[in-house]
C-alpha cells in the first residue's frame, strides 16, 4: 500500500500580503494619506478643498477609464492627450455660437466648420458631442487596427497618433482656441446640481465662497461612465475577453476569443473616453483648445491607472482600481500644492510615486504567483 502525499496547499497570506492584494488597497492608502496629513494641512479637509478635489478628479477619471481597458489587454494608449486636443477643438468649433474672424479667419476650419455666426451645429450641444465621439472613434479604430492586424506595438502606434493627431488639431485652428461655447455645453463642466453650505444660517445672503458644489454634471457623467464600464469589464463576455487577451493573447486565440476585434474595440473605447474627457475639460475652461491634453497630462492619466493597480503587463485591471487610483493621484497633487511646492517638485514626486506603483505591480504579481 502506497501512501499518497497530501496536495500541497498554497501558503497562507500574511495580513500585509492580503492588504497588498486587496481591491481596496489604494483606497486605504488614500485614506492614510488624507488622515496623516490633515493635522499638518488643515485646509485639506475644508469643504472648499474637498469640492476642488472632486472637480479635479471627474474629467481625469473619465480618461483613465479608457486607459484601464487598454492596459488590461497589455497595451498603452499614448494618443489620448492628442485625441483630447482634437475633439476639444472639433466640438467647440461645431457648437460655438460665434467666432472672431480676427483670430480664426486664417484657420482651415474657417468657413467650413465655423464662421462669424458660430459653428455649423451652433448651440446643438448633443449633435456636436456626437460628432466629436465619431471623430475619436475613428482615431481609436486606426490605432486598434494597426495593433491588431499588423501586430504593431501599441506604444509605437499610439506614439505616432499622438504626434500626428496632435499636429492635426493644432493645424485645424492654427493653434487658436475657440470660445463662445453654448451655456449648455459649459454646464457639463461647471454646472452644479447640488451645492452645500456648512455653517450657521445667520446671514440673508450666503457668500458664494462658502457654497460648495457637491454634485455636478461632470460628476454624473464620470460616475455613469465608471459604472457602465465597470459592468462591461466585470459582467460581460467582452470584459472577460479583454482580460483574457491581456493575460495571454495566444491562449485567448486558441480559446476562440476574437482577439483582433477585442483589441480594436478597446482602442475605440479608449479614444471615446478621451473625447468625453475633452468635453468636460473644454467646458470647464469654456473654450476648445487644440493644445489640451499636452504636457504632463498623460503622466496623470497613466499614473492614476497604474497606481490604481491595473497591471502594466496586461491581464489585470478593474474600473474600481482606477477610481481609487485617480482619487489617490488627485489627492497627492492637491496635498503637494497645499505644501506650496513648485510645479517641478510636484511632477518629480508624481513621477516617483508612479515608479513606486509600477514596482508595487511587479511585487503584487510575484506575490500572487507565489500564493497560487
Amino acid at each position: 500500500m502506497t501512501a499518497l502525499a497530501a496536495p500541497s496547499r498554497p501558503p497562507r497570506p500574511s495580513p500585509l500580503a492580503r492588504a497588498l492584494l486587496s481591491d481596496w488597497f489604494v483606497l486605504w492608502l488614500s485614506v492614510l494619506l488624507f488622515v496623516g496629513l490633515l493635522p499638518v494641512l488643515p485646509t485639506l479637509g475644508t469643504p472648499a478643498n474637498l469640492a476642488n478635489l472632486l472637480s479635479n478628479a471627474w474629467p481625469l477619471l473619465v480618461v483613465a477609464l479608457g486607459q484601464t481597458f487598454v492596459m488590461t489587454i497589455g497595451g498603452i494608449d499614448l494618443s489620448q492627450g492628442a485625441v483630447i486636443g482634437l475633439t476639444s477643438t472639433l466640438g467647440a468649433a461645431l457648437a460655438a455660437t460665434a467666432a472672431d474672424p480676427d483670430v480664426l479667419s486664417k484657420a482651415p476650419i474657417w468657413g467650413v466648420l465655423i464662421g462669424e455666426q458660430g459653428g455649423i451645429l451652433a448651440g446643438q450641444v448633443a449633435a456636436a458631442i456626437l460628432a466629436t465621439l465619431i471623430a475619436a472613434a475613428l482615431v481609436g479604430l486606426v490605432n486598434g487596427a494597426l495593433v491588431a492586424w499588423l501586430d504593431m506595438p501599441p506604444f509605437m502606434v499610439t506614439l505616432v497618433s499622438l504626434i500626428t493627431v496632435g499636429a492635426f488639431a493644432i493645424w485645424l485652428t492654427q493653434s487658436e482656441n475657440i470660445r463662445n461655447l453654448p451655456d449648455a455645453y459649459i454646464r457639463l463642466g461647471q454646472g452644479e446640481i447640488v451645492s452645500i453650505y456648512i455653517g450657521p444660517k445667520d446671514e440673508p445672503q450666503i457668500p458664494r465662497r462658502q457654497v460648495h458644489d457637491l454634485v455636478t454634471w461632470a460628476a454624473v457623467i464620470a460616475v455613469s461612465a465608471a459604472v457602465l464600464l465597470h459592468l462591461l469589464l466585470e459582467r460581460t463576455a467582452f470584459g472577460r475577453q479583454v482580460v483574457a487577451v491581456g493575460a495571454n493573447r495566444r491562449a485567448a486565440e486558441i480559446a476562440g476569443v476574437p482577439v483582433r476585434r477585442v483589441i480594436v474595440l478597446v482602442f475605440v473605447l479608449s479614444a471615446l473616453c478621451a473625447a468625453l474627457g475633452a468635453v468636460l475639460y473644454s467646458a470647464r475652461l469654456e473654450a476648445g483648445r487644440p493644445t489640451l491634453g499636452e504636457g504632463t497630462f498623460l503622466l496623470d492619466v497613466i499614473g492614476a491607472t497604474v497606481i490604481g493597480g491595473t497591471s502594466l503587463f496586461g491581464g489585470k485591471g478593474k474600473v474600481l482600481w482606477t477610481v481609487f487610483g485617480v482619487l489617490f493621484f488627485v489627492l497627492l497633487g492637491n496635498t503637494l500644492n497645499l505644501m506650496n511646492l513648485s510645479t517641478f517638485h510636484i511632477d518629480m514626486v508624481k513621477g516617483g510615486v508612479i515608479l513606486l506603483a509600477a514596482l508595487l505591480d511587479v511585487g503584487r504579481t510575484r506575490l500572487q504567483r507565489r500564493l497560487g
Partner: protein
Amino acid sequence: MTTRTTLLSAAGALGLLVGLGTGAQAATICFAFQDLETEFWVAGHKAITTTLTEAGNTVIERNANEDANRQLEQINDCIAQGVDGIILIPQDGESAVTIVQTAQDADVPIAVFNRPPSDLSRGIIVVADNEEIARQAVDFVAQEAMAAIPDRPIQPLILVGDLGDPNAVGRRDGFYAALAPYGDRFATPIEVATEWDAATALANLEAAITANPNVDLIFTSSDFLFPTIRSVLEPRGMWAPRGEAGHVLMAGLDGDATACQLIKDGYVDATGVQDLYFEAESAMNAILAAIEAGDTQPNQVIEDPGFALTSANLAEREMDMWGCVLLSEGFLNQ
C-alpha cells in the same frame, strides 16, 4: 533719471512704495503664472515676488507650466487656502476670462498682469497699449525703409504671436496701422506664425525667408525672438548692423535686455517698450488696495502707454527701458 534707475533696479524700493501707497496690512497673495520663458516674465516675476515679500506679505507661487487646466486647478487650490488676493499671468486670454470669473465668484480679488483676458470688463487688468506701442516702433523702421529704398515696394515681414493672446492681436494691429498710411510703398506683409514659441518661429521663419529672400523689414511681436531671427538671417548674410550692406531693418516689442544690446550694436532699429515695473507696481498696488478696502470684485483696466526706443532716441531714453536697466546691471552676463 537717477531716481528712476534706482527705483527700477531695487525691487525693495518698489515694495516700500507699495507699502506706503496702500498702508496695507500683510496679506496672503497667490501669484499664479503660466511659465517664465522670457526675460519679460522673469523680470516681472522677480519684481512682484520680491516686492510683495519685502512688504511683509506672504506670496504663494503657482507655476502652471503652460497648462491652462492646471492653472485653473491651482487657482481653485489657492482660493481653498483662503488667500486674500490673486495676481495672475494667464496662459492665454480665454483661460484668463474663466479664471477671473472663478476668483470673483469666490469673492477673491484678482489682478491680471500684462496678458489680458479676452473680456476686459472683469478683474483688475494691467495691460500695455500694445497696438500703439507697436505702431510707434514699426513707424520708425517704416520711415527708415522708405528713405533707404525709394524706388521699389518694400517687403515687410511680421512674426505674429499666439493670436489667442490679445497682446499678440494688438501688436499685429499696430504693425498694420503703421504701414497703412504709406499705401503701396509697402508690399503685402509676409506673416510668420510663432505661437510664442521659439522652435515654431524658427521653423516658420526659415521657410518664409527661403521663399522670400528679399525681405527688407522685420517686425517681431516679441523681443525674445531676436536670437531666433539672428540664427535664420546670419547664415544668409542678412544679419548686419546699420550702415552696412545687407542690413535688414528690424523692430520688436517688449523692451528686454537683448533688444537693448542689439539696438546699441546696430542690428535692431527700434523696439516698443512696455514699462514692466509700472505694470508690476500697478498690479500690486491695485490688488492690495482692493484687499484693504474689502472690495472682492474690483474691475479696473490700468493701461501702460509705453513708448518706442529707437536708434534715434537711444541716447535720451535708454534708461527708461527696463531691459536697458537690466543690461546695465550685467543681466546678460549672469
